[in-house]
Structures are given as structure tokens and as C-alpha cells.
């Protein structure tokens, strides 16, 4: 697999205290990587190291297949970012702020400013001074700036902060479209677990500076998906019955005598009677599975401060 971003044993210490401990992330081309963690877990510090704003105490960062050492100027041309809170020259308009960015990035075409403002829904406010923008508008403008130079990798720290539910949905749709149609890779930190769950193709969970879990969406779904957990006398025969009688192949045998059925969640009595009618003893049948929030809390020890 081609990786856009990899970190190898990335560490950051402040006065002997570790803020980030041996973080090894792997973000492939086209991934939407959801970076989850409690406040102070090390998300922003990790992102700052990736963007060259902080020097790692140890470890290395590989961007677009090359290890970053010294100047990052070349890779900056291929990256866009919002770190923590998008800062702007408040006395200038949104379009003027983007014009500064356009010049810094060495882009010739001025029309890209209006294109990107339209994309984030700020075209009408293009001439308004940024000091009069709402928090949500600034967030959108930050995204417009991050997108202006057509980056291959977007590093977004809490990009939906300050957006209303409709705005969050719009952004989600935008991210999905960009990933799908332009092949942009995303590294997104968020405290909205549901949001990440709907968006991410890969998830990394950081806790107290350590990356404690990194898994793709498929693996996460199988871990967190709600199912009917059926304890039976013979799991293989039970599977056969599920296939032949219930015409369902969405199940998994997870152990001796345990079968997880991901359909018929609201019809356990039908499943039960079907199995029993075929002579399979059903010891118990119950709804099982956990939400991403439950899973996150289990991994981080239960104290949720995200």
C-alpha cells in the first residue's frame, strides 16, 4: 500500500514529561483518517509535529514516501492544514486572506479563490472583513484556505468546531466528495465520535500520548456493530439454518457455540423459533455490540473528556 503519511515512533517531551509517546501512524492514499483522543491526549501536538511547527524529540515522519528532515518546503506545497484554530488577518476580507495564501503558494490563477469560496459556501461573504465573520464562517474560510492550492493531504484539527449541524453535514459531504473525486487524503482530529464514525475509513485512537489503536473502518465496524449474539449447541448447523431458512449471509461465527447475526435485530423470537424448529438448542439470544463511544471508552479506561 502507498502511504501518504507515516510516523515512526514519534515522541515529544516537555521538561522530561512525555506529551506524545512512540506514535506510529500509517495513512494510506485516499484514507480519511479519524484521529480520536481525549483533551490533552496528544492529538494537536502530533499534528503540529507533522506540520513542522514542533520538532519531535525522537522518531521520524515520512511524508509522500520520503522521510522529513530539515526543510519541509517541498512537502508543504502538497499539504493543507487547519491546526487548532484558523488564524486570519482580521482587518482583511476573506478573499484578501486567500489572496495572500495564493501568492505564498505560488499559484497563478486568481479564479481559484472564488471557486474555493463557493465550495465552502462563503462566496457572498468574500468581501466581508474576517473580523465580522462568525466562528463557523472562519472555520469554513480556514478550510477554503487549506483547499486552495489543491493539496494531496489535508491535516485538519477539529475542522467542524463552531459549525452548526447543517454545516457539519455539509462539511462531511464535502470531505467525502474530495476524497472520492480528487483522491485527497485526510487526517482529521475530532471530538465528535459519531462524526468520525460516519466519515473515516481508518481510525487512530490516542490516549495519554500513545496511539493505543489503529484500525480500518471495516475492522471497527465488526468490533462495534450491533448484532444478535446467539449461543447455540452447534454453531455450524446454526449458520446453515440462518443461510437456508432466513436467507441471510450477514453473520459471523466468533467462537465455539457462538454465532453473531447482524440482521433480524428486532426479530430475535423469529430467529429463535427457526433454529429450534431445526433441532438446534438455543442457550441464549441477546442484542450485543457497542457503539464507537463505548469502544472508545473501553479503550481509554472510561473517563471521557473529549
Amino acid at each position, binding site marked *: 500500500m502507498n502511504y501518504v503519511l507515516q510516523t515512526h515512533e514519534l515522541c515529544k517531551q516537555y521538561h522530561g514529561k512525555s506529551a506524545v509517546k512512540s506514535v506510529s501512524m500509517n495513512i494510506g492514499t485516499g484514507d480519511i483518517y479519524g484521529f480520536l483522543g481525549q483533551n490533552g491526549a496528544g492529538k*494537536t*501536538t502530533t499534528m*503540529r509535529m507533522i*506540520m*513542522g*511547527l*514542533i*520538532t519531535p524529540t525522537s522518531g521520524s515522519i515520512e511524508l509522500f514516501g520520503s522521510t522529513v528532515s530539515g*526543510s519541509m*518546503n*517541498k512537502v*508543504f*506545497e502538497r*499539504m493543507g*492544514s487547519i*491546526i*487548532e*484554530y*484558523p*488564524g*486570519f*488577518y*482580521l482587518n482583511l476580507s476573506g478573499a484578501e486572506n486567500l489572496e495572500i*495564501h495564493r501568492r*505564498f*503558494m*505560488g499559484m497563478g490563477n486568481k479564479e481559484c479563490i472564488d471557486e474555493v469560496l463557493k465550495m465552502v459556501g462563503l462566496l457572498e461573504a468574500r468581501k466581508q472583513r474576517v473580523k465580522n465573520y462568525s466562528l463557523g464562517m472562519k472555520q469554513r474560510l480556514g478550510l477554503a*484556505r487549506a483547499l486552495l492550492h489543491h493539496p494531496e493531504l489535508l491535516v485538519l484539527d477539529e475542522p467542524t468546531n463552531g459549525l452548526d449541524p447543517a454545516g457539519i453535514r455539509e462539511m462531511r459531504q464535502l470531505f467525502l466528495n474530495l476524497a472520492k473525486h480528487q483522491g485527497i487524503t485526510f487526517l482529521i482530529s475530532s471530538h465528535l465520535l459519531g462524526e468520525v464514525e460516519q466519515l473515516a475509513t481508518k481510525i487512530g485512537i490516542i490516549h495519554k500520548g500513545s496511539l493505543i489503536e489503529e484500525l480500518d473502518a471495516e475492522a471497527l465496524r465488526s468490533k462495534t456493530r450491533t448484532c444478535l449474539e446467539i449461543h447455540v449447541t452447534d454453531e455450524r448447523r446454526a449458520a446453515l439454518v440462518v443461510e437456508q431458512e432466513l436467507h441471510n449471509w450477514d453473520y459471523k461465527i466468533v467462537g465455539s457455540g457462538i454465532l453473531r447475526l447482524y440482521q433480524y435485530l428486532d426479530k430475535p423470537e423469529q430467529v429463535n423459533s427457526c433454529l429450534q424448529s431445526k433441532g438446534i438448542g438455543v442457550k441464549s439470544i441477546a442484542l450485543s455490540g457497542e457503539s464507537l463511544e463505548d469502544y472508545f471508552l473501553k479503550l481509554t479506561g472510561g473517563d471521557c473528556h473529549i
Partner: protein
Amino acid sequence: MIIPVVLANLVSLAMLLPKIMVTGEVVGANLQAIFYRQGNVVTILGPFIFALITGYVLAREYSDRTINQLFTYPVSRMRILTAKFFVIFTLIVVTTLLSCASVIIVGVVKAFEGAASFDTLTSGMFMNLTVCLLAFGTIPLAAAVSMVAKNVIPTMVLGAFASFVTLILELGHGMKAILFPWATPYLLVREFGEGFAQTGANPYTGTAITILIITFIVSLLFCLIYYHKSEVHSGS
């Protein structure tokens, strides 16, 4: 930027005041006196105004958090810092020349008396440009404070302190005043003293310039290293 320019141009109001000699005699303002007054005010207000400009150009990147973006552009930090110093120097020149032009206009319209020679005019302009150059000598120090504090207030405090000390030193009209780096630009203003100050060659010129150059080089080196190496943390 409007505030420093307005402050600098308040100098022109001094033209409305009568010029009183040490003997108590009231005389009209001639071109030499105009440049002397203007030079005095620029060199006294300069440390504060120029520190304010420096703080604005450098520290606001931190307080407005635009530094996060600035340091992720494909441009070296050294180039960014060089551009910022260039902007600061340009603003110093613009502020000083605006003050100079404003004073001449008000002087001519309202209070100008006596002969005006071309030599005095060119000397006055030369004084102003040299003041800009010498005033720039302390800018890296103000820049260093802005970078470390990441806030414009400490730089303003430094500028206010430097202006206050310069005011005291200039009121003394002494030759040694120029040894204080922020008061070194006064070196040329004194030549327009017209009886107020001791004029003629200042024996401390070499020492003053050396102190200013050392101040400039040491603080500039600090700025270059600090800007290149500094990390941008949350809340910076």
C-alpha cells in the same frame, strides 16, 4: 499603522508654538529650527513608535494565530523574517518622511520665518534618512522581545522605556546622550541645535556607533536563530 503615522505627524503641531531662546527672546522659526524640532520629536517618539510597528508586524502573527499558517508555507522562515524586517524599515522611513513633510508644510504655511537655503533643506532630509537608518539599529532588539513574548505589549513597554530615557537624555543636550542605542539617531539632530545644544563634532560618535552596531548584530543573530528554531505551541 495609522496610529504611529498620526503620532509622528503630531510633531507638526510644535510648529505652532513660539521658539524661545535660552535668553528668553522669542524668535520666528526658520528651516533649521523646524528640522531641529522635528528631529527631536522623531528621535524621542521614534523608539516607542518603531517598537510598536515592530511588535505589530511580528507579535500579531502569534496573537492572531496566523503563525500556524505562516510557518507551513513553502517559504523559508529566514525569508519571511527578512521580508518582515524590510517592511519594518519601510514603515520607519515612511513614518519619518511623513513627519518631515508634514512639519515642513505646517512650518511654511503657519510659522515659517527667515531665510531657507537649499543646503539646510538637503541637510534636513539627510538627517531624517540617517535617523531612519540609525533607528533601525535597535529594531532587532524589539523584534527579539516580540518573538519571545509573542505579544505586542512587552515590545511597547520596551519602546516606551527607551523613549522616556531618550527624552531625558535629549533634554540634557549632552554629547554622551548618543551612547544610549535608542538615542544614537540624536547624533545628527544635534547639528541643527542652533544654540540649544552643543554642536560640532561629537567625540563619542565612534563609541556610540559601535554600541549600536553590536546591539544590532547580536539581537539580529538572536532573532535569526530563534525564528528558525522556535516551535509553535498551542495558544502561541
